Structure formats: structure tokens, C-alpha cells
């Protein structure tokens, strides 16, 4: 082997050590970035794991809001939203919509009367391919101010310590508003009678480039009829799905979509804080639900209602939740789609 330019001064051993250091350093940096060296980092996997109920996860289902039913319909924009956002979905017209009524539980078989939080996932798209996904709940405010506190709440809820929730509430005073709603807020007997709120704030940009921070809600167009959870329990474990199927079978059910605009200084980064009364609200259109389908074979089944899927003219704000939700929803999606055999579709044409 003739290698005349080899300088005799440098030892091969030293070179090998240098190579090992470079490779080891690269691998360590990669491992650190991946979180393998940080057992305390709140990763999407850890957050999703915390939803697992003591009875075990509902394989093939969403890791939270596991019980639900699909709907399809139309979003009728009245054009007023164009003053706030250049998103095509606010231009006067009709756009296809797909969604999912759901219960805020990790148990896909939870009896309806045992679940306080009800939600709606919604996807609206336009002919040009713009898409808006949102997932809303019926609570007027969220439970906690940060994703880290939400993780702590999930762990608290599973705690064997009877005083754990009290301790959590003491450590998180912002929890009081949500807690008050869970005990004193009205229950209804229908998904159609619920108001669904984004709770998180987003930034709308109009065609001139002006930005406004907003939240939105879907307001029911039918009068809510209060019902106690005890009465609801008597109607059966799946009464909400049966009720909405029958109701939509008789005729379309609609919600009015209202966008609320924050004033400067309003708390945009904290979904536990409602904005004061009197904020500018803009009714932007009507969601019309025309058809209900069971989730098992339904069109909402394999849709991730990731709240950060937003059309041009909408974006995230300083609210930390949409990013955390997006990360966690993706994990939930990846897991449940890999478990499809645990929640098999029924043969085409067969009724589940």
C-alpha cells in the first residue's frame, strides 16, 4: 500500500478516536432531539398515553372523544365572514361539510349520560381545495390554561387519591370555571341542542392583510330542553346517537356559526378565560346537517379533525393548545388507523 502523503506524526489511534467522537456525538444529538434522553419531556406519545382509561384503550378508536357518529351536510356562508378572513369558505356560497358528533371520553362504549363533554369535529372544504378543520366542545371555557396542566389533569383524574382533584383545583385556580360548568351547566338530550365552541383562539387575516384574533361557536337553532343526567340515563346508553339519527332522518338540523373578535388586551392565549360580553360577533353562516352515518363505516372515521388544518386567511394564535392538539391528534390517528382490525368495518351494504 503506497500512500506517500501519510504524515507519520498523526497516529491512527487518534484518528479513530476522533471518528468515534464525531459519530457518537451525532448519535447523541439525535437521541436528545428525539427526546430519548429527556424522560420528563411532554411528548405527544406521553400526552396520548395519559388518556388511556383504567379499563384499557378502545382499540381502533380515537384516544379521546372516542365515541361518536358521523354526519355530512353543507356549510352555507352568508358572506359576512369575508370581512374577517379571506378564507374561501366565508365567501357567500355553499360548501360541503363532514363532521362527527362525539363524547369527551376515552371509552368508545361509555353510556351517553356518563359523559359531561360533548363535541363536534367539522371539516369544510371548497372547490379550489381549501380546507378548514375544527373540533369544538360544548363547555363554555376549557379546563386548564396550558397543555402541561391538561396532562396533569389527566393524571389527576386517574389518581387513586380521593383528594387529588381538590389538590389539582387548588393548584390550578383557572380550573374553577370549567368545574362550575360541569356541575351546574345544563344537560340536554340531543346533540342538536348543544352549542359547540372552539375555545381556542385563532388569527383571521382579511384580504387587506389585517389580522384579528377570534374564537368561533356553532349555536343550535333549536331550543335546548334541559334534562337531568339521571333522566338521560333512562333513555339508554346510546340515546344521543339514536336521537340525532332520528332527528336528521326527519329533516336537516342546523347551527349558526358565529365568530367572536377579541379586543386588544383580551386573553387570547388562555382558553379558560372567556372574553368579556359585548365583543364584536359576526354570524358567518349556517351548518346544515343532512345525513347521519354510523362511525364504523362512516366518512368521519378516518378523518383527523386537526384544528391546525386551516385555509389561507386563518392561522394559529398565541394559544398553546392547537399545536399540542395537532401533535396529539396525529398520534391518536396513527395508532387507531394501525388498529383498524380491532374495529372492523362491516361488509358493504350491511348495517352495523
Amino acid at each position, binding site marked *: *500500500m*503506497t500512500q506517500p502523503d501519510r504524515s507519520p506524526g*498523526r497516529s*491512527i489511534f487518534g484518528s479513530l478516536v476522533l471518528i468515534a467522537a464525531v459519530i457518537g456525538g451525532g448519535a447523541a444529538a439525535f437521541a436528545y*432531539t428525539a*427526546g430519548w434522553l429527556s424522560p420528563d419531556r411532554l411528548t405527544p406519545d406521553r400526552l396520548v398515553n395519559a388518556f388511556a382509561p383504567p379499563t384499557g384503550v378502545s382499540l381502533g378508536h380515537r384516544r379521546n372523544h372516542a365515541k361518536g357518529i358521523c354526519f355530512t351536510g353543507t356549510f352555507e356562508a352568508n358572506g359576512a365572514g369575508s370581512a374577517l378572513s379571506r378564507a374561501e369558505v366565508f365567501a357567500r356560497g355553499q360548501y360541503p361539510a363532514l363532521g362527527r358528533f362525539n363524547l369527551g371520553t376515552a371509552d368508545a362504549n361509555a353510556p351517553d349520560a356518563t359523559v359531561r363533554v360533548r363535541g363536534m369535529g367539522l371539516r369544510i372544504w371548497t372547490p379550489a381545495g381549501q380546507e378548514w378543520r375544527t373540533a369544538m366542545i360544548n363547555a363554555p371555557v376549557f379546563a386548564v390554561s396550558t397543555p402541561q396542566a391538561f396532562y396533569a389533569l389527566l393524571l389527576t383524574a386517574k389518581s387513586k387519591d380521593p383528594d387529588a382533584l381538590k389538590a389539582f383545583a387548588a393548584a390550578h385556580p383557572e380550573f374553577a370555571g370549567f368545574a362550575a360548568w360541569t356541575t351546574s351547566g345544563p344537560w340536554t338530550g340531543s346533540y342538536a341542542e348543544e352549542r359547540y365552541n372552539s375555545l381556542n383562539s385563532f388569527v383571521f387575516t382579511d384580504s387587506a392583510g389585517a389580522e384579528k384574533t377570534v374564537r368561533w361557536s356553532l349555536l343550535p337553532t333549536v331550543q335546548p330542553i334541559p334534562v337531568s343526567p339521571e333522566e338521560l340515563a333512562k333513555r339508554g346508553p346510546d340515546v344521543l346517537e339514536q336521537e340525532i339519527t332520528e332527528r336528521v332522518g326527519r329533516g336537516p338540523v342546523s347551527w349558526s356559526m358565529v365568530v367572536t373578535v377579541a379586543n386588544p388586551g383580551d386573553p387570547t392565549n388562555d382558553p379558560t378565560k372567556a372574553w368579556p360580553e359585548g365583543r364584536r360577533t359576526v354570524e358567518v353562516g349556517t351548518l346544515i346537517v343532512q345525513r347521519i352515518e354510523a362511525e364504523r363505516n362512516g366518512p368521519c372515521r*378516518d378523518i383527523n379533525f386537526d384544528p391546525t388544518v386551516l385555509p389561507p386567511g386563518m392561522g*394559529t394564535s398565541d394559544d398553546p393548545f392547537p*399545536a399540542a392538539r395537532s401533535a396529539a391528534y396525529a398520534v391518536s390517528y396513527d395508532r387507531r388507523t394501525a388498529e383498524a382490525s380491532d374495529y372492523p368495518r362491516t361488509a358493504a351494504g350491511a348495517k352495523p
Partner: protein
Amino acid sequence: MIEDRQRFTALQRLLHWLMAVCILTMLFIGVGMVSTIMPKYLTLVSIHKPLGIAILILALVRLVVRLRYGAPSLPADLPEPMKLAAVLSHYALYILMIAMPLLGWAMLSAAAYPVVLFTGVNLPAILPHSDRLHTLLWDAHFYLAFAFFALILLHIAAALFHALVRRDGVFEAMAPVPTRTVAPADRKVAPAG
């Protein structure tokens, strides 16, 4: 006709080092973004997608350039197993550079996510919505990313071994600027493996 050079062409070296930066950034962003729920998650995801497409385009350009200009021959005295490893690892690197972005794009398509490159610029779906396909592609994209990083570490180790231990001109062939001249007479060449 591919003439025998001692160094890769300037275009090849430019593509190599540009892609080295892109791919390492991409792999770190990839493992970093799936390990956080902080707002930077969205920022990282929004870089991951256009950067992946940029790598795909660069890789295709590079493949064409490589087919056109070839590569300098490996040293004649390089042991056969190392030659084989060099050839196979470079095939694997090219395959991964092209496959990883396509797998990511296909995975998002199979999940019916909009494939957003930039605000208002979406790529079309390249596969139908399917939970089975999504799972297959997700697994491939995820596990191949680690294989890719391991292969890059091996590649770096081999490059440094050529540069520091063997000093056989292989590293200099791809060095961004000439670091050391290897006189043609000193360098025994064999036909490229």
C-alpha cells in the same frame, strides 16, 4: 462517455453538501417535531414538508447529474468488502433520498391530510384515503428515517476514515474545496465498482 476524474464535478460537490445540510436538518426536525407538543411543533412540521419536497427535487437532479458525470474511481487498493460496502451504501442513500419524501407525501395523502407546502400551495394527493396504506407508509417513513440516519453516520465514519486514516483521496474527491492535492501518479485507480 464518463471520463475518470479524481474529484466529483463542482456541481456534484455543491449538490452533495447542500443536500447534506438539508437531509441532516430534515432528520433532526423529523425526530424533534414528533417529540414535542409545544408551538414549535407546528413550525417544525411546516418546514418538514417543503424541505422534504426540496430534497426530493434535489435528489432527482443529483441522480441525473450522477448518471451523466459518474464518480471518480475508488482506490485500487481498497479491500473488496469496503468497495462493496461503498457501492451498496450509495445505492441505499440514493434510494432513501428519493423514497423518504415520497413516503411522507403518500402517507399524508392516505390520511386525507392536505399536503401544504406553503400557505395556499398544496400538493395533490398521490394515494387514496386508506387506513391500511397510511399505517404501512407511516411505519416505513418512521423506521426508514432511523435507518437513514444510521446510514449517514456510517457514511460520515467512512468519509473520515478515508480522510484521516487511509488518506487515499476518496474524501478529497467530494471535499467542498481542495484540501490536499493527490498527485495522479500516486493514486492508483481501478474501474469504479
